[in-house]
């Protein structure tokens, strides 16, 4: 293998070996019946349980397939993130184009940003009830403020000459925003969105654990209620793998589609 090929493959090879070693040690602990494996059953145990139940989780009418849980959680995360992304861009535009809007919006932005998304759960349940809107709202609140503050920082980073050149070539203020500022900030805002995916992911899982009856977070709660450690471990594995895949996919989109930096 050439040096360049190895440099590319090394993180995956070494990372894969590292994970394999931990799983092997975990399985050995299971075979040796160490007490810790009662709480942390090894993959061979919890995967066997899920395969046996044909990837259907839960009891009776409240049971759902793994696919249904995944789509429910992802729908909430991406719904909330998309809304937060659009709202952050619109807020960024409004603030950067008008000082009056800045004065109106800024206090709310900086007052509400420090509130953890979980703190909104009781209010959201009262307002929206126990449904998807609650989860989407929690994700939105977890991402929107940080993304808006980040969007404003990205807007400030856009070289002033970009706007000057566009204005000199005949672009109005709105056209400058649409054709210059927007494309200039998109890669940075997308990176922020990716960074905030973890926050959104955690927010929706918490919402699913404390309120909603489906989704990946609900799997964990179901495991707790049934004293089923295999189910808890399986839920944690799916959450970890799903989060990893989405993060890598967002990184790929960022690198391939929104590749430029200003």
């Amino acid at each position, binding site marked *: 293998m050439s040096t360049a090929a190895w440099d590319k493959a090394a993180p995956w090879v070494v990372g894969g070996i590292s994970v394999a070693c931990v799983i092997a040690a975990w399985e050995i602990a299971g075979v040796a019946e160490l007490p810790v494996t009662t709480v942390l059953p090894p993959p061979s145990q919890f995967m066997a349980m899920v395969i046996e139940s044909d990837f259907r989780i839960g009891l009776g009418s409240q049971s759902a397939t793994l696919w249904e849980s995944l789509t429910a959680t992802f729908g909430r995360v991406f719904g909330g993130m998309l809304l937060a992304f659009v709202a952050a861009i619109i807020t960024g535009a409004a603030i950067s184009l008008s000082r009056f809007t800045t004065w109106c919006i800024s206090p709310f932005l900086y007052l509400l940003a420090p509130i953890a998304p979980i703190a909104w759960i009781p209010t959201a349940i009262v307002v929206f009830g126990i449904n998807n809107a609650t989860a989407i709202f929690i994700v939105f609140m977890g991402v929107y403020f940080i993304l808006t503050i980040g969007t404003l920082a990205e807007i400030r980073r856009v*070289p002033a000459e970009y706007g000057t*050149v*566009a204005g*000199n070539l*005949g*672009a109005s203020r709105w056209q400058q925003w649409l054709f210059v500022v927007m*494309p200039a900030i998109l890669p940075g805002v997308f990176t922020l969105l990716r960074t905030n995916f973890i926050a959104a992911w955690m927010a929706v899982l918490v919402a699913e654990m404390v309120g909603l009856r489906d989704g990946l977070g609900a799997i964990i709660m179901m495991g707790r209620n049934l004293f089923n450690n295999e189910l808890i471990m399986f839920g944690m594995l799916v959450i970890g793998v799903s989060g990893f895949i989405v993060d890598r996919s967002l990184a790929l989109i960022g690198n391939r589609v929104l590749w430029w*930096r200003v």
Partner: protein
Amino acid sequence: MEVVSESHESVFRLDNLTVNFPGQSGPVPSPLQGLNLDIRANEITTILGASGCGKSTLLRTLGGFVLPEDTGGVLYKKQFLTGPTTDIVMIFQENNLYPWLTVKGNVGFGLRFRKNAPKDLNKSVADMLSNVGLADAARAYPHQLSGGMRQRTAIARALITRPQVLLLDEPFSALDISLKRRMHSLIHKLQDETDISMVMVTHDVEEAITVGDRVLVLGGNPAGVLVDADARGPEMRDRYSKEYLNLQKEIEEVIF
């Protein structure tokens, strides 16, 4: 050296031009205090001067990017400039191409805002690209271009909108000597073809003489025109001619 005194139509008339910058404890005066000057149309005027003499401020004022005190100003088409206009396009030292657009996208960028833009935008962009020798680089992105190619793209982006005046702020200062000379030839070619008025600020005496039809040297505080020389003709393009060397000596004696 012949001092220009013949009468030409002016593109800019500086009438008691005074520029002050805003400061924390009141306005900070620039070297431009009550400057009077005519800049003629359809020729290349190069402006030289020591650092801090006000030449870049002057250029930005001509572009309407810096507004002077209301005791005077810049007359363009017999009216005081009150801000940037699409008639006067400036090319900055940092060429500021948009990194997310290809060369073709950058060159055609300004056309989308023009009401009187040509119907076949693709053809206009293709013609302009071949005019500046970038036809083969149409699909390249700015980070894939050399310094000279980037500046040619910036020039093409400015010229395609057919401005009346092109302002150039030390546009070739980052280029090596051979590239610089190729860009000078391009500037002459484009000026011959379009008859556009150009004002270029530079700190390079050779560049000022070989590119300019008229060379102005700014200096003093408040700034005044120390040299106003005609640099037209093939002898001024020849770096070893007597005329070129005489003008170079005259300018260098004033500046250094």
